[in-house]
C-alpha cells in the first residue's frame, strides 16, 4: 500500500490536472507515481518535465539508448516498479527480450546484442550508480569515443533522474498498476532482487492475476 494517497484526476487542482493531462497524452494513462505527486502540485509540475524530456526520441540520444540506461540503473536499485514498466516500453521500442536479459551484471559486454557504444554507456551507468568517484579513465574514453557533450549530458541526466524517481517511488510504496499484472519479469528472472524487501514486492506482484 502506498504511503501517501494517490490524488485522482477528479480531485486534482488545476496545476496537477495539467500534469496528468500531459502524462496521459504521452503514456496513455496516469500512472500511480504521477498521482502521488498530486500531494504537492508545485513539485509535480517541475519534476515531471524532466521525465517528459527523457521519454522521447532525442533531443540528442535515441529513446532505446535511454531505455537501456533506465533498465540498467533501476535494476541495480531493485526497483520493481520501474523495471517492469520499462521492460514493456523497451520491447515496444524494439529492444528484444534477449537484449534486455543481457543487461544484467556485465553480460552485455560480451553479448552479440550490444554495440561498443551501448557497452560504453552501460559501463558508465554502472559506475554512476555504484561510485561516480571511481569511474575509470578508460570508461570515459569509450563514452567520449562514441558520444558528444550534448549526448553525455542526456546520458547522465537519464541515469540520475531514474535513480531519483525509482527511490522516490519505492520509498513511498508506489504500486504497479493493474495493467502490468501478468507481466513476466525479464531482468529479475535473470537475477533476483538483492533487497529482501524488493524480493517480497516481486513475490507479491507475481501472485497477481492479470486483469482483463
Amino acid at each position, binding site marked *: 500500500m502506498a504511503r501517501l494517497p494517490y490524488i485522482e484526476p477528479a480531485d486534482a487542482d488545476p496545476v496537477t490536472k495539467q500534469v496528468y493531462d500531459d502524462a496521459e497524452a504521452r503514456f496513455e494513462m496516469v500512472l500511480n507515481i504521477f498521482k502521488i505527486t498530486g*500531494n504537492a502540485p508545485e513539485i509535480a509540475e*517541475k519534476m515531471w518535465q524532466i521525465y517528459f524530456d527523457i521519454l522521447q526520441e532525442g533531443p540528442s540520444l535515441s529513446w532505446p539508448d535511454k531505455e537501456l540506461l533506465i533498465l540498467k540503473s533501476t535494476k541495480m536499485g531493485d526497483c520493481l516498479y520501474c523495471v517492469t514498466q520499462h521492460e514493456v516500453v523497451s520491447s515496444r521500442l524494439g529492444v528484444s527480450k534477449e537484449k534486455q536479459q543481457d543487461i544484467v551484471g556485465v553480460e552485455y559486454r560480451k553479448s552479440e546484442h550490444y554495440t561498443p557504444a551501448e557497452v560504453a554507456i552501460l559501463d558508465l551507468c554502472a559506475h554512476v550508480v555504484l*561510485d561516480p568517484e571511481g569511474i575509470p579513465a578508460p570508461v570515459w574514453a569509450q563514452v567520449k569515443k562514441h558520444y558528444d557533450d550534448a549526448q*553525455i549530458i542526456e546520458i547522465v541526466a537519464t541515469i540520475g533522474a531514474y*535513480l531519483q524517481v525509482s527511490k522516490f517511488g519505492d520509498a513511498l*510504496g508506489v504500486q504497479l498498476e493493474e495493467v502490468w499484472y501478468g507481466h513476466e519479469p525479464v531482468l529479475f528472472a535473470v537475477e533476483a532482487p538483492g533487497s529482501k524487501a524488493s524480493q517480497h514486492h516481486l513475490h507479491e506482484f507475481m501472485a497477481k492475476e492479470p486483469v482483463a
Partner: protein
Amino acid sequence: MPATAVIDVPTSELEETFRNAEEHFGHVPNFVKVLANNPTFCKSLTDFMIQALGEGRVDWAFKELVILKTLRATGAYYSYGAHEKLAADLGNSPEKIGDTNNSLWVNSDQFSDGEKAVLAYVEQIAEDPNDVGDEIWGSLLEHWDNGQLLELSAVITTFINIGRMGDTLGVSDPILFSKLVG
C-alpha cells in the same frame, strides 16, 4: 575539469534559463553551465533545482540539513561545501550541522523528534528505499503532513540525483547562492 565543456555564454534558447538561475542563485552555477551542452535538459533540470532550493512546505533551513544528510549518506561530494555554507547562512548552528554526520543526530539535542524522523528516513532511503518500514513512516506521520512528506521525499531523492550527476560530470560549485552569503 568537467567531463564536458562549460558553457559560459548561453545560446538564445537558454538565455531565459541563465537569467532565472542568476536571479535565484545570484550567479549561474557551474552545474547549469555544464548542463547547457544540452539545452532541453538544462532548462528542465535548472527549473527543478530552482523550485527545490528555496522555501517550500518545509522550512528551507531544515531542507538544507536534509540535503547534507542525503549527500553524506549516499557518498556524494558535489556541492557539499556549498550546502554546508548555505545551511549556516539560513540559520543552522555549526553544532546542528555537525550533528547531521553519521549517527550523531540520534542522541543530539539539536534536533526535534520530527527532524530526527526525517533523518532516519534519509538513511533508510540511502540504504534501501524498498524497506521503509511502518516504524519510520509512523514517526514521520506524527510530525509532517502529506504535502510536506511528498516534498521531503522529493528533496531527498532529487539530491541523490544531483549529487550523482555533479560527481559524475566533475562539476565544482563551491558557492551556490552568492546573494545569500552570510
